[in-house]
């Protein structure tokens, strides 16, 4: 194991990648209209402190709140061919990609990482709705396959946070082919006897729901998340009637047997620890926020020095 890649680099990343946010920034909740202090909102994982509305959260912010000490090591995802169809609508696909990369600071719509939650080693993958609607193309497919392969290699559970409008149309049929590709990834986990937990977040729709998001051992959703194959607008146009209140929302799906649980984001980490430890036949976890895992003994001194030096700069 290379400790610089696996331990020090992520730590340095987490120190330097924090975006500078002015202390006095306020954010208005779109649900209840409350003005929320930015830092307080971030500390509450973007859940409104007044009305519990779950706002979007980036994979990086989610992982920071999820992993012990906010420390995780990103897994490299094999790069697919860029713009495989030379797709152009009103804009060229590469231009859309570049503007998504610029606005999110991310390379693509999924982040994969290893780390520990309550001292339970896991692999986690999270889809980024802010990156072209989280859409599933070759990269997202590669990311899920890489996550599954890493989980099998390390014998760890995979926790996947889904969020997507569906398949990435700009990759045409190749985006559709991610349905069978990611299904193969899920099969690898199942054959290796490893838990696959899906956390469905707002929104999870289309081909994503009809593949890896609905094949978990356990399906947990965040409150009020929209989860569907066909969206409510399309259905209303087809059947020409108004849909009932709460249709296709997490609680509705729970009632219709499609989910195991609906859990608040602020309680998700504890729940994931409890569930993964039971499925992995491990003793109950020590509860609460835990510091980052210590690096391996023989590397301890050097690693600490490097981190301290990095922190000083």
């Amino acid at each position: 194991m290379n400790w610089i890649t696996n331990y020090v680099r992520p730590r340095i990343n987490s120190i330097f990648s924090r975006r500078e946010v002015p202390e006095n920034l306020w954010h208005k909740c779109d649900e209840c209209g409350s003005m929320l202090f930015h830092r307080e909102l971030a500390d509450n994982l973007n859940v409104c402190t007044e009305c519990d509305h779950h706002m979007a959260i980036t994979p990086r912010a989610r992982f920071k709140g999820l992993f012990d000490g906010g420390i995780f090591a990103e897994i490299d995802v094999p790069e697919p061919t860029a713009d495989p169809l030379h797709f152009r609508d009103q804009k060229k696909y590469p231009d859309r990609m570049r503007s998504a990369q610029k606005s999110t600071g991310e390379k693509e719509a999924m982040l994969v990482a290893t780390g520990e939650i309550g001292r339970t080693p896991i692999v986690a993958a999270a889809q980024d709705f802010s990156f072209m609607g989280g859409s599933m193309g070759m990269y997202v497919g590669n990311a899920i396959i890489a996550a599954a392969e890493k989980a099998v290699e390390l014998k760890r559970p995979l926790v996947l946070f889904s969020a997507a409008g569906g398949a990435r149309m700009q990759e045409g049929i190749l985006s559709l082919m991610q349905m069978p590709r990611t299904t193969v990834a899920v099969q690898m986990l199942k054959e290796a006897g490893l838990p696959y937990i899906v956390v469905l977040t707002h929104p999870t729709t289309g081909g994503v729901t009809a593949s890896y998001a609905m094949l978990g051992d356990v399906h947990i959703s965040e409150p009020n998340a929209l989860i569907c194959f066909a969206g409510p607008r399309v259905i209303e146009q087809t059947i020409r009637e108004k849909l009932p209140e709460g249709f296709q929302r997490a609680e509705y799906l729970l009632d219709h047997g499609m989910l195991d649980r609906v859990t608040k984001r602020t309680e998700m980490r504890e729940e994931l620890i409890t569930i993964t430890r039971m499925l992995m036949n491990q003793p109950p976890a020590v509860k609460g926020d835990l510091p980052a895992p210590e690096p391996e003994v023989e590397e301890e001194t050097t690693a600490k020095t490097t981190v301290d030096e990095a922190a000083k700069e």
Partner: protein
Amino acid sequence: MTQYLDFEKPLAEIEGKAEELRAMARANEEMDVAEEAAALDAKAASLLEDLYKDLTPWRKCQVARHPERPHCKDYIDALFTDYTPLAGDRNFADDHAVMGGLARFDGQPVVVIGHEKGTDTKSRIERNFGMARPEGYRKAIRLMEMAGRFGLPVITLVDTPGAYPGKGAEERGQSEAIARSTEMCLKIGVPLVSVIIGEGGSGGAVAFATANRVAMLEHSVYSVISPEGCASILWKDAEKMREAAEALRLTAQDLHKLGVADRVIVEPKGGAHRDRVAAVTSVGHMIEAMLGELKDMDGDALVADRRKKFLDMGSKGLAA
């Protein structure tokens, strides 16, 4: 009487004229129109050839949706013997948009499954225009699982605008049913071959077409979204379906280049609907050939072949 598509209008005029002439000749024995009618026929034939030589992607969509195109039921009736439909998902209902059952193909017992769109108003409604509900996928899952246990090859015929966007379909887990159907396709240790005979509409098609071998009829299409749907999202104008069809690369020829379709089946001149017998026969030969390629592989090899095929898919883009 053929139903003409909008781009076939000039053809309809010529063929109409020839027909008119012949009708006049039948009414008046002294008229000799043979030569003139034959000239019109020749003109029509050459125009037909021109029209179909280089169909645009949108025109291909229109041909793929042609109401007289051979449908799943036609292929099953013609190519299989002892077809014994098996109904129901053992949970909720039988979905008439999905045909499926036991049959013999060239004497060999198989399971055949496909989307059926219907041929007239009554049957179209009964078949829900080929748009399956969760029960359809769950019936398919049940049949594929059974095929796997009894060592029967599975043949799927894909022809669907997509999964049905309805309230009940969503409540009963459309997504989960499609995901499980794709999963079952990947799991079974028997040969699985698929032919896209008309429209391969999105997830509803993948759920059956995750196969060892996928063939497409020359003018069939297979896409992540309909051109109209794509146009209304990306162009904010559903009328831009021609542009969307172009951009999506949904033709059999492009999908063959992308490695999604293993084979392209040549259609009779002017499309499968102009010579249904020839089209059905070609599909039969292709199924036979594809099953032949797989017949010496054992269950594990078939599963491994399918996995590798899909894991490797798309790695080279259009250069594949």
